[in-house]
């Protein structure tokens, strides 16, 4: 963390005092939770921090049969505010996050106006604090207006109250190699990371779905794997050359996994994420032309699904990030070609990971904690998240019931939008409680109004 952190009051610390309304006093006894899926034991929380001894008068949560993980951290969330409050707001999106077990989300910069100035990132950050469901950490745009032409004031965003460390033009690729090089170099000054949406624009003009057997059959313009992989290949070499941190957003192809694996084997400063939907769904679903399956990057093939699962299991892929992308009904209730790209993810991510990674034996619960919290917090330079559930640490945690199962019902989601690709799917696991610095944001499976 940079020196700036000590100069300003940490947002974590003063947000905490503000949050002593609703959701409990901050003193809790959590009875018999299986920590990271291991042995059951009790957890004690006093004033938002884990302590070794039970606090007299603390509220008790019966966690028999539940698993305790550090509060989840999403590196890739579209909260749509400012600009598209019809799709989502910071308040509704962070409620959805809490319901999904998250205690921190990174709000992507492609809002309207774009989060490319200190003013906008501070506004989003403040809205997150006011909502109080999770820490909303803004991501700053790399270029002005995410237009890919000149650098935004990255330093001003880094120095702002929002303390931006992750920069991304997500939705657009920083395709200009020289600009990408400069961005990588520049963010070194404040320990930043450039999160790249890897998509070669010329190879994906008018692209509608993964280029493959299905796109050919459906007559939809293909989105070749090489359009993603070519940019990743270039960027990992730029990361090596500049010695700066590159984070690869939502990689989706087997080739991308190979490239990141190679870059890591060379010791290059590269991290990567995969979305829940790319862990589970394939382009075969597009056959019905239902735009709920339209997403960027597109759903790929079964071989790609297997490759990203393997990459997540062996640590090549560092994190699961939702790319939660809410859209109003009319943006999806139309022809495929005019539909918006993107899917909801916050409230289903943990269940999808349980289904695709835990139940397949690819990850244990400690691995889930690592990929959905610990590493995400480290990449985002978020203090106080992704920490062990031990005395002295901030009490950010999620309790989940791995034996539960639920059928995903769009109407029951907390997001303002309904575009989940998992509607009607029966998925395992359910979040029973989420605590943000000792304040319950979810209890007994219900979001606590704040």
């Amino acid at each position: 963390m940079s020196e700036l952190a000590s100069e300003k009051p940490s947002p974590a610390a003063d947000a905490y005092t503000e949050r002593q309304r609703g959701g409990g006093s901050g003193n809790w006894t959590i009875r018999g939770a299986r920590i990271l899926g291991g042995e059951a034991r009790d957890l004690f929380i006093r004033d938002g921090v884990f302590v070794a001894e039970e606090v007299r008068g603390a509220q008790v949560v019966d966690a028999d049969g539940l698993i305790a993980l550090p509060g989840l951290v999403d590196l890739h969330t579209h909260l749509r505010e400012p600009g598209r409050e019809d799709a989502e707001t910071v308040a509704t999106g962070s409620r959805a996050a809490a319901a999904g077990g998250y205690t921190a989300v990174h709000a992507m910069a492609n809002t309207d106006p774009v989060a490319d100035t200190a003013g906008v990132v501070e506004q989003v950050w403040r809205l997150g604090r006011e909502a109080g469901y999770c820490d909303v950490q803004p991501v700053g745009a790399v270029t002005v207006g995410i237009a890919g032409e000149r650098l935004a004031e990255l330093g001003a965003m880094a120095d702002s109250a929002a303390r931006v460390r992750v920069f991304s033009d997500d939705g657009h690729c920083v395709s200009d190699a020289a600009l990408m090089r400069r961005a990588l170099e520049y963010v070194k000054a404040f320990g930043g990371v450039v999160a790249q949406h890897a998509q070669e624009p010329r190879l994906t003009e008018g692209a509608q779905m993964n280029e493959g057997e299905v796109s050919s059959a459906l007559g939809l313009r293909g989105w070749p794997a090489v359009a993603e992989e070519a940019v990743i290949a270039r960027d990992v070499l730029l990361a090596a050359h500049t010695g700066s941190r590159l984070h690869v957003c939502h990689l989706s192809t087997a080739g991308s996994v190979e490239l990141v694996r190679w870059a890591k084997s060379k010791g290059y400063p590269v991290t990567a994420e995969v979305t829940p939907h790319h862990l589970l769904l394939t382009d075969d679903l597009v056959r019905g032309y239902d735009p709920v399956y339209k997403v960027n990057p597109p759903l790929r093939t079964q071989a790609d699904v297997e490759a990203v699962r393997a990459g997540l299991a062996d640590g090549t892929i560092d994190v699961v990030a939702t790319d939660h992308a809410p859209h109003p009904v009319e943006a999806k209730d139309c022809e495929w070609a005019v539909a918006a790209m993107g899917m909801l993810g916050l409230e289903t991510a943990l269940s999808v990971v349980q289904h695709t990674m835990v139940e397949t034996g690819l990850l244990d619960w400690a691995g889930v904690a690592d990929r959905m919290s610990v590493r995400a917090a480290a990449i985002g330079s978020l203090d106080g998240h992704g920490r062990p559930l031990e005395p002295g640490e901030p009490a950010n945690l999620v309790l989940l019931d791995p034996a539960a199962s639920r059928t995903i019902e769009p109407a029951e989601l907390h997001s303002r939008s309904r575009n989940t690709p998992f509607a009607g799917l029966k998925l395992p696991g359910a979040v029973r409680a989420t605590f943000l610095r000792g304040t319950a944001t979810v209890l007994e499976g219900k979001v606590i109004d704040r």
Partner: protein
Amino acid sequence: MKRHLLSTADLSADDATLILDTAAELARIADRPIKKLPTLRGRTVVNLFYEDSTRTRISFETAAKRLSADVINFSAKGSSVSKGESLKDTALTLEAMGADAVVVRHWASGGAYRLAHAGWIRSAVVNAGDGTHEHPTQALLDAYTLRSRLGSLEGRRIGIVGDVLHSRVARSNVRLLSTLGAEVTLVAPPTLMPFAVEGWPCSSSYDLDPVLPKLDAVMMLRVQRERMDQAFFPTEREYSRRYGLHAQRMAALPEHAVVMHPGPMNRGLEISAEVADSTRSTITEQVANGVSVRMAVLYLLLGGSEPAIGTENEGGAK
């Protein structure tokens, strides 16, 4: 038969044969002095066109009118660039109007599928061409034409030449002709050959000349001139030289083989005037057959199991 006609992939050999046989029956009334049947009296067919295609619209309109249906032409503007009323809102309007069948031409692949399956409308949907996906009635009329020229399609060799990548006609034909037992060969430059074409029920070649002598029919696809600007091929002249059908090339076809084109043609690009106007060409025949095939489709989707042709007195119903 299914409730909609969206893709030739949905047609079994029996379904397709039934449509072609029905079309043959209906073609006979074209020779009568009164070309009208009362079969679909009181039914409403809407032609919903998001793309200008006078020839296809007129063909469907003629077909519906010969079956005495009420026809409403609804030309909807709106593309990915200029958005007009949404497909959904238009569909709800048509539903309220009580359309029994909607014939839809849409610039977006899947437009007809969406209309049929999104739950907006209850009427039968006929795909009159959707983006670069399918154009099933064109394939049916091609099959009809081939059948009338060659007899059965079983074991017949059909070449489809040109911009296969962007061709809805090619997709529908590959699926239908293979279902009917024909052996299809696609010929295109590699840039205009679909990805993963190896998985299609046909063979493919980048070279036209070795394919021609084995064919019973060759279908030339329209090449849009703007493809050149997108670097799919270097020049029109080179395209024409490698993939165009001119008189000299036509001579390599077996004696009985026919030349087809779904129209509109670029004379001098994919087909020379001499070939287009030759006796081997079925191009005008295809237009006439289009009406019969579309009558058969509308009849089978809307008329159910009643006989297609009754006498005027019987009112077309039992």
